[in-house]
């Protein structure tokens, strides 16, 4: 595929086009993702998450500058939620990174969640392959840290940067299920604001409860002020150190293997669902099935089991109703 060659050469238009194909779930997207797959595995994937307003985009902007200084090519995927009402979205994260807009070594793409939970994670995974194969050394995935979708996206990362800021009750938020678990490096941004030290202590406290069992990697906490450019160097060092550590201990490989398992499961489950939908027309029949149940003329498990029977028989060429 010419597109694959163009992508591997780093052609920006080709990369952007490929991402659109994947986002739109075009039929060519699967073949494209597979064609690129052998050329992936090089890039370091950094997930950046945290509540809105914590300064993630500004932090990423600063990190991009440092990455570029050391000659790395950098890509950013900035994800924002789509409107549940209209399906549209305003994607404004890249505004804070726009000074890099004309740097040929930086690629920034804004993605909308498009309201499809599973879909977003799948698309992002394949988008990462495009950027990885295109030769970007470091890829940032930036997203708002609320809900299951975001956790899925963050699981696509090698290292997760969780960004907090003082004065928002983040301490309590931080302890909520899932979020503290997935963070590898904890960043307290806007460190000049009152409450920064208090927040740091609270994060240390919560981290002290993390299961020490398998997880022998210590999670660093870095204080930054992205707008003032403070702490960014330290952050970069923490990232580099963490990367070395998980590479050395085998944790990185473990993560990547596990990620591939999840990807396979995701693809499998999506394809089966799609297959069933096509074969036994799930979406079309659903209201009728629900009607049958509502009138108490059938029961849920029995109904579905029968449909699955049909589906299997369909595969063998005969069918009952």
């Amino acid at each position, binding site marked *: 595929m010419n597109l694959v060659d163009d992508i591997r050469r780093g052609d920006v238009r080709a990369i952007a086009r490929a991402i*659109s194909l994947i986002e739109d779930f075009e039929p060519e997207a699967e073949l494209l993702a597979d064609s690129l797959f052998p050329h992936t595995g090089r890039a370091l994937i950094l997930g950046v998450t945290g509540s809105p307003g914590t300064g993630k985009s500004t932090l990423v902007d600063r990190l991009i500058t440092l990455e570029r200084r050391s000659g790395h090519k950098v890509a950013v995927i900035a994800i924002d939620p789509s409107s549940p009402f209209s399906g*549209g*979205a*305003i994607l404004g994260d890249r505004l804070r990174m726009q000074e890099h807009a004309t740097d040929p070594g930086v690629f920034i793409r804004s993605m909308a969640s*498009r309201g499809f939970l599973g879909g977003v994670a799948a698309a992002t995974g394949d988008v990462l392959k495009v950027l990885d194969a295109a030769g970007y050394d470091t890829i940032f995935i930036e997203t708002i840290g609320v809900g299951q979708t975001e956790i899925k996206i963050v699981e696509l990362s090698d290292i997760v940067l969780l960004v907090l800021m003082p004065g928002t009750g983040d301490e309590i938020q931080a302890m909520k299920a899932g979020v503290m678990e997935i963070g590898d490096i904890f960043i307290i941004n806007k460190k000049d604001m009152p409450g920064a030290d208090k927040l740091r202590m609270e994060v240390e406290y919560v981290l002290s409860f993390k299961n020490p069992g398998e997880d022998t990697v210590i999670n660093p906490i870095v204080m930054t002020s992205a707008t003032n450019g403070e702490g960014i160097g330290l952050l970069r060092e923490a990232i580099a150190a963490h990367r070395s550590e998980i590479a050395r201990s085998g944790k990185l490989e473990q993560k990547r293997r596990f990620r591939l398992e999840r990807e396979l499961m995701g693809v499998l489950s999506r394809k089966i669902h799609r297959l069933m939908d096509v074969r036994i027309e799930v979406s079309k029949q659903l209201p009728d099935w629900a009607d049958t149940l509502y009138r108490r003329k059938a029961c849920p498990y029995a109904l579905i089991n029968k449909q699955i029977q049909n589906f299997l028989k369909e595969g063998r060429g005969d069918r009952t109703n």
Partner: protein
Amino acid sequence: MPSKKTRILIAKPGLDGHDRGAKFIARALRDEGYEVIYTGIRQSPEAIVQTAIQEDVDFVGLSLLSGAHNELFPRVVDLLKENGAEDIKVIGGGIIPEEDIPLLKEKGVQAVFGPGTSTEQIVEFLEHESGR
């Protein structure tokens, strides 16, 4: 399956800082189901074009009220062409004298939406151009 979305970049080239209209259009188009990339004020034509390409937008909407449109709009069109992206359509809005519109169109700006334009008119145009 999520449906294909139309993506549009709303950009303010040059030094003009009046962004009320641009912000309104960004939000109005979002409410009509578009994915809008908004990059704020003071964007150079080069930055606008690179952004448009990376984001693989279908349209670039340029908003300008400072009178610099005859210089800056065609510059964006030309840069898109130079970068092999002439299929990305450029539209303009703001304070643009009617007598300048024919020349802008000649230079490759698809449409110019002056003061008093409604969201409906813009959406109609975008739908038409996207082939819907």
